[in-house]
């Protein structure tokens, strides 16, 4: 019986570290900066929210 070779996966620790650093940066922003960032994000997400609402509407009816 042949052994299945062990899977090898890339090391993503540097990616995770950068993400953690980004979260820290985001946390350190001022209250006003966070609000402005969230308002901008909400605008960018608006089409997705609309699409979700439209998907849900036929389910309800």
């Amino acid at each position, binding site marked *: 019986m042949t052994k299945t070779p062990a899977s090898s996966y890339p090391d993503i620790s540097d990616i995770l570290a950068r993400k953690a650093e980004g979260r820290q940066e*985001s*946390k350190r922003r*001022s*209250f006003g900066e*966070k*609000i402005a960032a*969230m308002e901008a*994000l909400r605008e960018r997400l608006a089409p997705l929210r609309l699409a979700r609402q439209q998907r849900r509407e036929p389910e309800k009816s």
Partner: protein
Amino acid sequence: MGMKQTLDVINRMEADGIIGRYAIAGAVAAYNYIEPTVTEDLDILVSFDERSAAQSGLVTLGPIFSWLKTNGHDEFRNEGVMIAGWAVQFLPVANDLDAEALARAEKIDVQIAGDAVTTRVLRPEHLVATALRVGRPKDLIRIAQFIEEQAVEIPVLCGVLERHKLGPMWTAFCARTGIADPCGLHGLP
């Protein structure tokens, strides 16, 4: 249109006596302390004239909505009234925890995209205690964020939890999330 304009309207309501003292609560208040998450709503914890509430035992939001309608804000979304792009939910003080949270809310000056506005925000320990009491999955995640990001003063939080008899819920939360209980309330009611 944006949060600055929303807060300007709410400040005018307070100045006109339509609402009493108010403070930002919920997810937006948490922005003041931890990494922000997207939300559609702006929760406003608000007090009313104590005499009128004590007489009837009821609090009505009628005067708020009437004033807002007169001032051009009559669109509702997600149970909130739309003010300058935010669905604002007015939450009357409904228990001792709310009353303490509002009394101790912090007055701050906020700069949003270059414009300044003054407002109040609930303190982190009261946000955590309220989230614990509400107890939805997203509230519990927020509590974990506050703890992980060391955004609460632990002795202050423990005092709030003890005063408002949230010991058992706190102990259960710590057990469920694997957080070492920093208060050591051991389920005290």
